[in-house]
């Protein structure tokens, strides 16, 4: 940790990724020029682990983040040189597999000795299967057993505890499966400052700062630009953010000088409210965060300091994402343009609906969109005086069996020669549905484990 002008220790944590497929270069730039103590890669959306689990079934050495190689080959040499530790959820469905691969990369790059920790314990599929008759689904209130499909994966959102333990045991790199996004940032803070894990106001205050960067560049100008209203300088070279944490939990957000994007009150506010519900009760595994009195000060160029976050005791339960195979989804699209294009698209819709009936195609739900008119906002779309010059007609259907959605897609594809005139080539997509449901389990029913791997020279 560095010291600031007042001699206080400042912990600097960078946000190098906020989803599985995130860009590589900005994280490498942070590793090289960010003067970081820690670099965090958060890579798990709700469904990511279930998809990774399906990969792992096919390949026992897989099931972790597919970009791990690219990320580590480019960033690890900088991290080693700068003394930057890494905390990441790239382990997905196979943290030990990710550790093994990382060890190979370290040896190949000649960076040994290094210590890599896997944080395990988030996989609670067995627990959920055992308790499926009693565990209620948050969305419906009915027990897990009411779901019609195989449980592919069930992962509990662990808190920062496992990460703190791994750092105490000397890890240079900590690789986890499912962990609360903000907990990836909180772990290093608790470890470095020696914070008590029941000082709720302190943890809550720090978590407001962690929340600012858990979606990476969404706070530094990503997902923000609206020309004429909200300009973002040099968006192509968007810089990913870092936070500077003080011992009392005060957090400032900034980014590397010379990178694109911007950080100000407006970008921080959009990110702060993103995916929260009641701002006074944001539940994380480590603390219930209260954003309701937060104030944001622009203290420099691309630099915002956060005040007045607080917190309350963490809940006795932890959230579990349960992933179920729920049948198949098929989508197909075709475009009509020119005079009468909309009328031809409408005729095409009618023809497909009739052919689905003729073929007795068994769909649970069918949706038809006119892309360019109302596909996103339906009847709430702003009206237009003129019909669109082009219309992309989209069909989407859900069915228990793959063959039924394939039939739907084929009825759209064959419109080219057997439907209205002047359509252009369609595209179709078929995918298995992995539906995610949530339930709560007692905190005491699960425990994290840390497995350390030492890579020697």
């Amino acid at each position, binding site marked *: 940790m560095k010291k600031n002008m007042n001699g206080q220790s400042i912990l600097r944590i960078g946000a190098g990724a906020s989803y599985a497929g995130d860009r590589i270069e900005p994280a490498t730039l942070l590793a090289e020029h960010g003067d970081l103590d820690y670099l965090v890669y958060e890579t798990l959306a709700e469904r990511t682990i279930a998809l990774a689990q399906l990969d792992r079934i096919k390949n026992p050495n897989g099931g972790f983040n597919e970009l791990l190689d690219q990320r580590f080959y480019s960033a690890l040499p900088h991290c080693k040189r700068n003394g930057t530790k890494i905390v990441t959820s790239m382990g997905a469905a196979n943290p030990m597999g990710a550790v093994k691969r990382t060890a190979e990369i370290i040896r190949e790059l000649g960076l040994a000795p290094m210590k890599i920790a896997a944080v395990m314990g988030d996989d609670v599929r067995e627990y959920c299967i055992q308790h499926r008759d009693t565990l209620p689904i948050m969305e419906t209130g009915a027990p897990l057993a009411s779901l019609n499909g195989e449980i592919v994966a069930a992962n509990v959102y662990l808190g920062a505890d496992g990460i703190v333990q791994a750092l105490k045991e000397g890890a240079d790199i900590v690789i986890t499966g499912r962990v609360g996004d903000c907990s990836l940032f909180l772990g290093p803070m608790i470890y470095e400052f020696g914070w008590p894990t029941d000082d709720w106001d302190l943890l809550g205050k720090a978590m407001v700062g962690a929340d600012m960067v858990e979606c990476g560049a969404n706070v530094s100008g990503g997902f923000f630009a609206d020309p004429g209203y909200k300009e973002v300088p040099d968006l192509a070279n968007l810089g990913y953010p870092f936070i500077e944490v003080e011992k009392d939990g005060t957090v400032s957000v900034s980014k590397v000088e010379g990178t694109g994007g911007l950080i100000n009150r407006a970008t921080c506010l959009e990110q702060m409210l993103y995916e929260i519900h009641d701002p006074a009760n944001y539940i994380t595994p480590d603390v219930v965060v209260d*954003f309701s009195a*937060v*104030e944001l000060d622009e203290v420099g160029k691309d630099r915002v300091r956060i005040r007045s976050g607080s917190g309350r005791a963490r809940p006795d339960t932890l959230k579990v994402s349960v992933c179920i195979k729920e049948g198949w989804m098929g989508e197909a699209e075709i475009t009509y343009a020119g005079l009468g294009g909309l009328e031809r698209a409408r005729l095409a819709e009618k023809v497909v609906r009739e052919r689905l009936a003729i073929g007795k195609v068994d769909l649970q739900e069918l949706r038809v969109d006119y892309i360019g008119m109302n596909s996103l906002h339906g009847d709430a779309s702003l009206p237009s005086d003129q019909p669109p010059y082009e219309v992309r007609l989209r069909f989407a259907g859900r069915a228990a069996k793959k063959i039924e959605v394939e039939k739907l897609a084929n009825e759209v594809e064959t419109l080219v020669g057997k439907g209205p005139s002047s359509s252009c080539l369609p595209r179709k997509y078929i995918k298995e549905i992995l539906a995610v449901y949530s339930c709560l389990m007692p905190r005491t029913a699960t425990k994290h484990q840390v497995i350390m791997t030492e890579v020697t020279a």
Partner: protein
Amino acid sequence: MIFYLREIAHARAGDKGDTNNIGLIAYEPAFYPIMVEQITSERLREHFKGLVQGPVTRFELPQLYAMNFVLERALGGGVTRSLSLDPHGKSYSALILTIPVSVPEDLSLKLLKAGRKPLRDDV
């Protein structure tokens, strides 16, 4: 004068399961009372015409001149099984900004000076 909400506020939307939330932020503190008065949960539900099946709740953060709307049963059964092209409802931030709002005269003049166009001239 009547302006689109877009002229006085910006927004971002996100998801959790079948619930969508929209953070709405006034460009200037003076615009915040317009939001409080006119962008109610009921007004939002009406404007979204059937997209939201469950309750809409509004949380206010006056010191930040911002508010957060929580829209339940708003994502066609949830991100992972919805047939929608926007299963996360991320484009709902663009939809909320199409709500027309009535802006007091002094603030309307300010908007006109900044080159913003009113939707209608009546008050």
